[in-house]
């Protein structure tokens, strides 16, 4: 059974899309319980409720941020995470959806793939990309198991293989420093612009990172903590509904 958690629509356009999406549930054979997330219904509580009630698939209707929140609460659960995006995004590409219609088709077929989660200071996230950024160049001391690295920069991008297909080694986190003055940081991924040139690329299963200046840890545009920070990969720990043409589990 499907448990749908939708972002509360902020525009009539989004409200119309959500209405269209809901109208397809019964015809497509994917009917289930539907709730809007809001201040009185935090996502982690909604997910816990769904899991306790035995729903087999929890579906995010909204943006990548909502997927991040739900995935973090579904660590090591048998239930699967589905996604009906309201717009194109990095995760729609990752899961093989072209639009909400193809996402509904994927839910009907319910092909599952295992994806990595990340742990940031013990909290679980679907880490497609986070940035550790300071206002000016500072020294980042990174303790990465077999070695310690010191990097002088103002930004370290942390990316999981699931977040960028160019980093195709599974089970490790990519710590990337891009060359400066190469255009927008955000433009490089997922066809958003010219490819940025990598200055440094280190890979590890985990890292403890300190910085000489306080640096913010930013996930999906939202600051989640500051340095020092501990980041770890949790391989293949969440089941996600993907398009039929995507990789097998």
């Amino acid at each position, binding site marked *: 059974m499907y448990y749908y958690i939708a972002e509360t629509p902020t525009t009539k356009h989004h409200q119309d899309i959500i209405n269209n999406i809901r109208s397809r549930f019964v015809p497509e054979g994917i009917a289930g319980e539907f709730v809007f997330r809001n201040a009185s219904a935090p996502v982690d509580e909604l997910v816990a409720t769904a899991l306790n009630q035995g729903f087999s698939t929890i579906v995010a209707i909204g943006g990548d941020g909502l997927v991040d929140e739900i995935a973090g609460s579904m660590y090591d659960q048998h239930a699967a995470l589905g996604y009906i995006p309201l717009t194109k995004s990095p995760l729609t590409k990752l899961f093989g959806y072209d639009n909400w219609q193809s996402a509904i088709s994927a839910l009907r077929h319910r092909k599952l793939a295992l994806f990595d989660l990340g742990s940031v200071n013990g909290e679980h996230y679907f880490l497609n990309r986070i940035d550790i950024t300071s206002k000016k160049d500072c020294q980042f001391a990174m303790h990465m198991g077999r070695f310690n690295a010191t990097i002088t920069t103002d930004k370290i991008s942390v990316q999981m293989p699931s977040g960028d297909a160019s980093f195709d080694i599974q089970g490790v986190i990519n710590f990337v420093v891009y060359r400066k003055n190469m255009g927008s940081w955000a433009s490089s991924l997922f066809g958003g612009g010219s490819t940025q040139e990598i200055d*440094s690329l280190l890979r590890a299963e985990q890292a403890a990172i300190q910085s000489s200046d306080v640096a913010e840890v930013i996930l999906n545009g939202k600051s989640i903590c500051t340095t020092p920070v501990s980041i770890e990969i949790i391989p293949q720990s969440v089941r996600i509904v993907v398009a039929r043409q995507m990789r097998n589990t």
Partner: protein
Amino acid sequence: MEVFDTIIGQNVKLLGNLTNQGPIQINGIVDGQVESGAVVIVGAGALVKGPVKAKVVEITGEVQGVIHASDRVEIFPKGKLVGDVTTKNLVVRLGAMFIGKSQQAPDIEPKDKEIVEDNEK
């Protein structure tokens, strides 16, 4: 074009053992052992203090340590190696520096060997 699994940038200092199956590009400083199943490139301005083991090692910067390369070691102009080398093929280009002893890898036939030692001590 080589796709590197690990890149040590100019502003990176690394202390410890760097091990990787894929290619490694070093443009900064590594104090420790470097091991790759493919190529290790020590770029201009880079410094490696420690042993290097790989299939191919290309040096334009500086290595202070022994090198064991199953296929080839090549020291380019302005490159510097202070340490002994065991490899199938050693190439020391004009303007490069090599201070150490070279030894043919024992299990490999001594063919295709090219040694050009211009600035050796």
